[in-house]
């Protein structure tokens, strides 16, 4: 098991490099602009950079990123990108990190509650709300929260002056994710509660709380955790919107700015970091998976996919 995760962790960097290669190739073949000098560096000597082939540029980029943490030059300001990019990453990670906790903290109990009240009004209420919120564009939710809590009740500032003001962007981020988690948890829990082993546990006189929280919930956590990757991906998407809405300097606004000004180096940097974050997420997802499903520990082998719906 340990070996499996060591391999998974070691695989992160090659995965990210593969993503970079993909983007490089796509850029060179599809963008149709001058591809001889896509990434600009601080120590570029004018006139010399044009000689690099695509592969050389790729090699140089990977080397600089992983060995020297050098993401190149910010296209619009001619200043090194690394510091700004890392600062922005920290902002986004803080938001999404707290967001993912809040997401599961809200989503899991809601899903469990709905499943235990299956067929009653509480269940239909939660199911309707979660379906609605999981489809709602995050800026609509942000607008609603801001209009109500900031402009009407005046509890918080739109401009995010106090730490407490961050509740609104965080709520925007996590409510939508929580809706997804609640949906999956409810479905998983409802399925588990119908399984024969729940009946046999009840027939042996185990308490309701043990049957629901110790046994059924643990089984329902498998589908809930298997979407960790997707939940995090959605949070990153959400943070693009939230950062723009609340004028935060995070990765999201960096991407928007880079696309707007066609700043390839900045966009490459953002893509690299997001690819890195998502690869780490993949490992975390597998880890969570093994955590709730100990019987998988034996069957873990290299290259096998854990998240397969048919392995129940």
């Amino acid at each position, binding site marked *: 098991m340990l070996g499996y995760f060591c391999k998974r962790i070691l695989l992160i960097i090659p995965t990210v490099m593969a993503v970079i290669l993909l983007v490089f190739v796509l850029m060179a073949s599809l963008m149709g602009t001058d591809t001889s000098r896509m990434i600009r560096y601080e120590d570029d000597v004018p006139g010399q950079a044009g000689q690099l082939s695509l592969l050389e540029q790729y090699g140089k980029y990977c080397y600089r990123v992983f060995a020297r943490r050098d993401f190149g030059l910010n296209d619009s300001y001619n200043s090194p990108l690394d510091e700004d990019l890392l600062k922005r990453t920290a902002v986004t990670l803080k938001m999404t990190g707290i967001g993912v906790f809040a997401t599961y903290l809200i989503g899991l109990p809601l899903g469990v509650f709905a499943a235990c009240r*299956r*067929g009653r009004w509480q269940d239909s209420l939660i199911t309707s709300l979660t379906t609605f919120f999981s489809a709602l564009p995050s800026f609509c939710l942000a607008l609603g929260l801001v209009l109500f809590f900031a402009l009407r009740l005046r509890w918080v500032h739109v401009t995010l002056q106090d730490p407490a003001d961050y509740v609104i962007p965080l709520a925007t981020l996590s409510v939508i994710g929580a809706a997804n988690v609640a949906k999956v948890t409810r479905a998983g829990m409802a399925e588990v509660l119908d*399984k*024969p*082993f729940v*009946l*046999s*546990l*009840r*027939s*042996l*006189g*185990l*308490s*309701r709380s*043990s049957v629901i929280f*110790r*046994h059924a919930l*643990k*089984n329902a956590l498998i589908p809930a955790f298997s979407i960790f990757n997707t939940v995090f991906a959605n949070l990153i998407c959400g943070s693009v919107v939230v950062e723009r809405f609340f004028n935060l300097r995070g990765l999201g606004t960096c991407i928007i700015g880079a696309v707007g000004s066609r700043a390839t180096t900045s966009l490459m940097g953002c893509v690299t970091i997001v690819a890195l974050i998502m690869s780490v997420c993949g490992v975390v997802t597998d880890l969570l998976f093994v955590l*709730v*499903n*100990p*019987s998988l520990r034996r069957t873990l082998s290299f290259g096998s996919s854990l998240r397969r719906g048919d392995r129940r």
Partner: protein
Amino acid sequence: MAGNDVLLEVKGLKVSFGTPRGAVKAVSDGSFSVRRGEVTGIVGESGSGKSVSAYAVLGLLAPGGRVEAGTALFGGRDLLALGEKELRSIRGSEISMVFQDPMTALDPLFTVGSFLTEVLRSHSPKTGRKEAWEKSAKMLSVMGIRDPGDVMRRYPDSLSGGMCQRVMIAAALLCDPQLLIADEPTTALDVTIQEEILSLIQRLKEERGMSVLFITHDLGVVARLCDRVTVMYGGFVMESGSAPQIYEEAAHPYTKALLSAIPRLDDKGEEPLAALEGEPIDPIDLPRGCVFAPRCPYCFEDCLRTRPRTLDLGGGHSAACHLVKKGGRADV
């Protein structure tokens, strides 16, 4: 019949399930009893209400199920009138249950050991972790498992069906219940494993003086194991009596039909096995008369008009059929 001999006595049980099409009358008149140290078999085809009756007794009906009438006396208490909390303390410690498909009856995310110790400790919280572990291992070896220590550390998905059923029976007997309800415990198993589980149940009954309520559709199994038999059809009890009474002097046409459908080794092959014509009844729209009338070869006017009353034939033998006369069998 001595009253104190009877461990569980179910009378007039009525269970229905609410569905969009209407109430499904799963059990309309369920009456049976289990005596101390005896095995009572409930026999019937699927949909006869045999399993639902057992679930109702333990308060384990699926959502939508409702007990509408009846009593289930067990040690002076009416189980059907008890609250969930009191029932829970009875389940597992005084009455236990074993299910049809052992492979799905165990939580796949817990080892056999943690499952067994949790069951034990939930009924006697004072038991220490280590003591519970040892007790569970001992119970597994009583079940005929050779290496309990190894099995205790395994997850259910690495165990065979017969092994799972042994673990399930061990869990059921861990707290020394007086009554074991076995709901078709061998149906999902291979024939050779079936035999092992049956002899295990028989041995446990003899060694521990335990009573068993054995639910099955297999009259052959009943013949081998049961002291008393209750035959159900369409939610009604058709006939009940001691095993010899049912096998030798079956009074009800349905019981006879079931018996003639069993292949016998001593059969010379002169007569074909009898098959029952027709379809089982629709439990939402029960016929006004006898529920078996539509399929009964001896059906006459009365059968379609009124439900037959249960007649005592003496010696604990009773049947519900218009053709059965007091003190005798159906004149057919």
